[in-house]
């Protein structure tokens, strides 16, 4: 009784003059009370759906499960690259092949992989240059007293703990199950956050597509059993590519028999591009 009383008191000020059950003939549309009553009747359905944990999206679109059997993660490869600094001759063929294979814009500002020349003088700071990614060769060295000098090919490190993936606000850059960091062209909004986040400067904004672009380890090649284009053309076998999970892969051999370093290990990005016989000056 008390509840009824309360309800009656509550509805008093808001209810229109017409009785609840019999709207006046002069009211052509549903009034507020009727509308709320209708919703009240629909309530149990909504509540049941939510209680059952059935999102409405499932009712609208029936999601079809992929037909092909999924390979478990443990059986997928874990791709990685190694670069032997002692073998690199700085010919820049890797950077040229990358541009040809991946339709990278032919301009010095847009590169997915590039070759840097380090010149460490006996006195003073190390000098690093990479004119047009090293594709056209390097100009004569500056006349300094050289302690040592070498070439360092660079590319996306395909980190196991990638900062670019962490910062992407829409999930457009991601790590595939076989350990390659890719960019989803159709989903990227071009906010450039990943470009800022990459400690290796491996990303750039594609000036026509206006999406982030970077090395894919030539994903279309490696998934068909071919080598990445840069590894394919490297004339001195300075670049080595393979599956870290396979004991027989060439990358296991180079990792085992050479002193190895990765770039900026202190950032805990856990890069999967390894440098053999490299100098600590390399960053």
């Amino acid at each position, binding site marked *: 009784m008390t509840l009824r009383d309360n309800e009656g008191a509550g509805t008093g000020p808001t209810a229109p003059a017409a009785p609840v059950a019999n709207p006046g003939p002069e009211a052509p549309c549903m009034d507020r009370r009727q509308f709320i009553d209708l*919703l009240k009747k629909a309530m149990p359905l909504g509540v049941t759906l*939510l209680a059952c944990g059935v999102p409405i999206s499932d009712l609208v679109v029936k999601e079809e499960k992929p037909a092909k059997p999924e390979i478990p993660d443990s059986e997928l490869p874990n791709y990685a690259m190694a670069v032997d600094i002692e073998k690199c*001759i700085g010919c820049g063929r890797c950077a040229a092949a990358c541009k040809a294979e991946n339709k990278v814009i032919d301009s010095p500002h847009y590169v997915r992989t590039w070759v840097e020349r380090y010149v460490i003088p006996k006195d003073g700071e190390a000098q690093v240059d990479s004119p047009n990614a090293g594709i056209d060769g390097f100009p004569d060295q500056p006349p300094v007293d050289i302690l040592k*000098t070498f070439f360092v090919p660079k590319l996306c490190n395909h980190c196991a703990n990638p900062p670019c993936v962490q910062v992407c606000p829409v999930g457009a850059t991601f790590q595939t199950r076989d350990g390659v960091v890719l960019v989803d062209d159709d*989903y990227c909004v071009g906010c450039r956050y990943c470009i800022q986040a990459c400690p290796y400067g491996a990303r750039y904004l594609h000036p026509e597509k206006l999406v982030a672009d970077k090395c894919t380890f030539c994903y279309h090649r490696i998934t068909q059993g071919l080598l990445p284009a840069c590894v394919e*053309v490297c*004339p001195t076998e300075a670049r080595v590519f393979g599956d870290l999970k396979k004991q027989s892969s060439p990358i296991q051999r180079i990792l*085992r*028999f050479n002193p190895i370093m990765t770039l900026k290990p202190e950032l805990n990005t856990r890069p999967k591009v390894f440098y053999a016989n490299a100098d600590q000056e390399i960053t």
Partner: protein
Amino acid sequence: MSTVKVPQQLVVLSVIGVVVLSVFFGMRTLFVPESFGRYGHYRADAVDAARALPIKFAGAKTCAECHDDVDKTKSQGFHRHVSCEVCHGPGAGHVEDPGTIKPTAPRERGLCPLCHNYSPSRPTGFPQIVTAQHSPGKPCMTCHKPHDPVPPSTPKECSACHRGIWSQKQVSRHASLECTTCHEVPKAHFTNPRGVAVGKPAANTFCEQCHSKAAAPKESTIPQVAAEHAGRYLCWDCHYPHFPEGKP
């Protein structure tokens, strides 16, 4: 009989809640791609899209299927590791349609110096020329065959070709050993390196000449191992002879 009545405010709130949730899930259905989240916080279809991109470089193995004669020549020369497409350009189109699409065959002087012009940054031992002084103006091909380049003189030291192995050995415990201590090197190997291979030790007994307990004198610093140490393995399955202190 009195029934329990739900307070009106609660009803209104629930109604609003249901409407908001319906709109949320409806929008989600419209805007989130179907394959999003199948493997992680990304669109699974993007992986297939990345996989479906066209291939431009066919790979040296594919070239060798038709051009086996050139491949045979090249595989015995110093350019054996140089893939065909380094000089001839991407060749997947030529593989698809060999008749009309022809790969480039560079004959001018510009290409070879990209690798062989002198630069102090290049590894020692890599063959280099000063392009300005080396037969100026002549295309490289007048003297050198690109598929089987030959150095002007026969190399005398093993390190001229095997510099990587040599420099690693030089800083290892095996530095004092000559290459010939373990390898038999026929004279013909210097002029025909791929045709005449060097001899390699075949059995553990070779290493045991120095490293068995019986062979080495007691006061020696040479590591001595018991005969049963290797088991059914070969020594070099675990120890790299050119850098023996590397982690087995």
